[in-house]
């Protein structure tokens, strides 16, 4: 934020148009570059939240999945505030169950 933006904010004015332009560009380019339209992103967001909420209780309203881009590299960024962790599912065949991110097919099936 620049000094001008800050003063505009204090006075309840609109931010300078260059600031708005930059923000809008960053957003639209993130979508252009990833070739994901907002609809697909929304679908992905819902599915990601669904998967994550099987493991932890998350704030669905606050949950945010968005595209961010820096140096021509686009990243999918998820910000999912966790309310609390759900009791771990029994890890039958995996004594040390330390494979993060790998959905256990046995467990997935039992949840369905």
């Amino acid at each position, binding site marked *: 934020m620049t*000094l001008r933006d800050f003063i505009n904010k204090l006075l309840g004015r609109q931010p300078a148009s260059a600031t708005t332009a930059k923000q809008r560009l960053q957003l639209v380019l993130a979508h252009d570059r990833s070739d994901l339209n907002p609809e697909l992103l929304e679908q992905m967001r819902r599915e990601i939240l669904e998967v994550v909420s099987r493991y932890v209780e998350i704030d669905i309203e606050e949950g945010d999945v968005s595209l961010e881009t820096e140096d021509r590299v686009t990243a999918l960024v998820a910000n999912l505030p966790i309310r609390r962790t759900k009791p771990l599912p029994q890890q039958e065949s995996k004594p040390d169950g330390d494979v993060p991110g790998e959905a256990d097919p046995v467990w997935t099936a039992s949840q369905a």
Partner: protein
Amino acid sequence: MPVTTSGSRSILICSGKGGVGKTTLTANLGIALARQGMRTAVLDADFGLRNLDLLLGLENRIVYTAQEVLSGNCRLDQALVKHKLEPNLALLPAGNPRMLEWLKPEDMQTIVGMLRESFDIVLIDCPAGIEDGFKNAAGAAEEAIVITTPEVSAVRDADRVIGLLNTRGIKPIQLVLNRVRPKMMANQEMLAVDDVTDILALPLLGLVLEDEQVIVSTNRGEPLTLNGSGSPAAQAYNNIARRVCGEDVPLIDPAKVRRGLRAKLGRLMQTKIF
């Protein structure tokens, strides 16, 4: 930092969006490079809406075009139009718009390949858009200069083009920011130079200010770099030419173009506080 390669070079001048200054840059950069002693060819690859001849003041001297060269109806040197005041510069005019119906990327490669045999630098004035005209022209270039203005639509289109150039392995790709208005930038009513270079992630080859003299010079068909004009745009084009040749020329700072109290205040207001 501008990059130079040895031997003959082919540089695409493109933008995505139309009307942002490709042809003006090609004409002025072509003349400036020629004046520095580089044997320079400018190729009008905008077959649909050719204009490079007009900006160079060569429109009345065209006999043959790229079309006759490709179809074998004339030799390359017969089609090339040498500039009378700057004999290091030659234009290869665009052919008939109907050429678009059969022209292929290989044809452009053939033409550029021929030009590179007798010139140090070949500048290719690309048509707007990202369709066939762009693809044909891009297929013949090793390097690219992307030109844009500090406006959202132009920057977005430039980004598209940069993506396409990247996938084609064109390198280096450098940026020219055109029609910069220091006063609007100071008031943060125009995207800042850093904003554009950050977003597009390209090295900046040059900044060209909004300059009425550009229009005056196109009226006359005499590029600004031809007559030793000291106007801001002329200086910018000359500096770009020197950087293309590998010289380390400092960029102008648009904030420093303006003097006085208002300018100082503008600079203060642009300070990033968090």
